[in-house]
């Protein structure tokens, strides 16, 4: 339930708000719904990743020019060791890390801070 709520509310908020808006959404929803800090981290991270990676893959699929390859190219530069990794893999790894960490820690913080006030 929490997972679905984060995706729906986080998704809508992300269309209008700044890039980091998914974090306060996780914080608030976890404050409200999550049981433990640990589970809050897991569910928030998973939901944020689903949202970000899902939308990234969608945009990547419908675009006419492969922008992911071009952006990944800027990061890898001419580094030969990274030549063989599929470029979209590099992009999705970064998207996953950014969304998992910002969503996860914010969700976890929601439960922690709630407990402070309820204790």
């Amino acid at each position, binding site marked *: 339930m929490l997972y679905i709520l984060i995706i729906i509310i986080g998704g809508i908020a992300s269309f209008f708000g700044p890039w980091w808006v998914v974090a306060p959404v996780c914080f608030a929803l976890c404050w409200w719904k999550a049981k433990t800090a640990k589970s809050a981290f897991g569910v928030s991270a998973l939901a944020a990743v689903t949202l970000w990676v899902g939308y990234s893959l969608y945009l990547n699929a419908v675009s006419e020019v492969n922008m992911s390859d071009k952006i990944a190219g800027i990061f890898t530069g001419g580094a030969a060791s990274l030549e063989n990794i599929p470029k979209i893999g590099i992009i999705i790894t970064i998207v996953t890390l950014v969304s998992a960490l910002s969503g996860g820690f914010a969700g976890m913080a929601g439960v922690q*801070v709630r407990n402070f006030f309820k204790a």
Partner: protein
Amino acid sequence: MKFLKHFWGLALAAGLLYLLNQSWGTVPPLGKLFSPFQGFLQNTEQKDTGGDLEMPLKGLKGEVSVRYDDNAVPHIFAQNDDDLFFAQGYVIARDRLWQMEFYTMVSSGRLTEIVGERALEYDRYNRKSGMANSAKKIAENLKKDPLSSSILEAYSAGVNAYIAQLSYKDLPVEYKILNYKPEPWSPYKTILMLMNMRNTLSGGSNDYRLTNVVSKYGLDAVKDLFPDYPVDESPIIPVGTKWEFTPLQTPAVPEKIMALPDNGQVALNIPEPRPEIGSNNWAVGGAKSATGLPILANDPHLGLSLPSIWYQMQLSSPNMNVYGVALPGSPGIVIGFNKDVAWGVTNVGSDVLDFYKIKFKDKTMKEYWHDNQWKKTEQRIETFVLKGGKVISDTLYLTHHGPIIYTENKETDFNKNAPAGHAMRWITNETDGADLLTFYYLNKAKNYDDYRKALTYYTAPAQNFVFSSNQNDIAITPNGKFPLKWKNQGKYILDGTLPSQDWQGWIPKDQNPTVKNPPRGFVSSANQFSTDPTYPYYLGWRFAPSERGMRINERLEAMTQATADSLRSVQNDNFNLAARRILPALIASLKKDPRIAKYAGFSEIENWNLKNDAGEVGATIFERWREELNRAIWNDEFSPDNKMLYPSDDRTFEMIKKEPAARWFDNQDTKDKIETMDEIIGYSFKAAIDSLTKHNGSIDPKKWAWSKVKSTDIKHLVPAFQSFSRMDIDNGGGKSIVNATTATTGPSWRMIVELDKSWPRGYGLYPGGQSGNPGSIYYDNMIDKWAKGELNTLLFLKNKEEKSDKIKKQMVLKPQN
């Protein structure tokens, strides 16, 4: 403790968001950039399904219709000129906002704000040279001219209307990667954009290098090796054209013509002129064309870049209807055509950048000696803001010549306690005239007289304006503001203490060289000498090498019944005139040593068809050999490492053919041996083959093909963004070839226009695409066709109502209260 237990997660989350929201060194803000809702994925474009778009905009007077064709070229129809230029600014900004602002950051010396300290030295030079300051003055001056001012203000308002619509996710992707935001546009920024062209096209100088040559070898050697006019030349104004004016008295050559360096050599850090940044244009008259009316062609050669320097568009209002290319950031069409006329430009390249050695009173540099008195310098503090906020300041000193570009903290013969300074006098810092009005009047020109009137507004960078009309006139004019100089004034560093060395005034604009309907039936230019030595004024001692101009002229000379397609074949001509001139002599020399005939590459060069076509191995060998030969002859005496320059190819070729015993052939670096010319030629041939073998493996038609070795790259304006670039384009050409495509420069727009009594036919394309967005299919869609030498048929609509299958969508800009 309890607090810590409950709040560390929140602190961590907040810290993480902060980290991911910032850029760190060259690492962009990962959170912002990689969010699919805000970051680079928002710059991807889905297949355009066409359809109309309506856009209410504040500042418009009436409705403007923008019709986009299948190449994403906008055709703008406005009801008045203010709306036309407003819409032009709006439409260009939609496609090229990042690029146009980037150019202004370059010329105003503000790149450090975007990329940090690594741009500091580059910025410092650009600030010192005064472009930003002069742009400010020009913008101020133009405010007083109602026409210029209304065009510039309308254009700015259009750009700003677009900027006002942008939120972070809509920003061009370069802003996201480099993490900054666009500033509001203004007329000043348009002038800064034009300053960039002045700098590119007239910002080089050999003055100090040649002064070093005089200092080491004496004036006679310079007169011999660096003459004022080449042996082989076909000047822009045909030899024999009469000068139909009474010239002003030119200043007499003073006794002292230069300031020699104090300690053997001067070491200014000034870029060399770049002859490969030249261009071709020509017009054939009706007598030579199949239609009986003129055909005009132009291909300006510039640094190849993505986004492209040009933007195609049609501009239409009750006052004008014109098609061509615009510079992003600048109103009007720069190269193009309308119903009655067509015009184009190439760079003149006359000497409009001089250096003066300045004698300061003391270390403070507050006073300098000129005309037997101490004069005060003006001081200005320049501040540089680095990315991240750090501020660095620099004091700039100005003399009446111009800014002090360089100071040297060593003992000088001028003054033992003061640094030697060098002031720069540069046409770019002239603040009169209104270059943009030249283009405005050309855009609406109807005939030859309109063309001549348009040219009078122009200052710099001086251009060869080629012209043709459907009244069967053709003309060409090397045009701009030219200093009135004594012969060879500014060939060397000048003495800043003597008034005789100051620029002495200007060549009257109506006495700039020009020719209309010459007997040979065509006009042309390729940056070569504007005139032969009979022209009464001094313009410069060195222009671009003559080969391109001579080849164009021999092709046009031979041409009858010309069509757009025959002129296209001239634009793509890969014939190597330098090889025709010198290769027979070089091969004859090689043959004197029977061992060389067995050397790899010899049969390839001997059997080469003299064309720099993409697949030719002979072209690869010749071009490399030419470099090695120059090095072998000249590097011992005139090494660029010693701040000198080589004599021209023209002089070198003449020496090989006529002065085989010249002392310059001997390699000074070998102490106990005197090399002959034949030995040097043989040695350089082997060096060329060895260097090619080292880099490309043993001789092989695939690996040694000219296009592979030349390897033309079209790079993004930020060179580090290699994946936004197109590398290793497969095409021929070369630096003194009509198809002047080198590794990094080339025809940046090719256009051919057949004039007609009823409606002209235009053809053209450029090596890029209309969109500046690397995520668009229109970012680089014209490159492959460009590499093949093909042209698009240009859609030039008669009016807003004209139907065309090529029109794919329409955007209506509506006034908003």
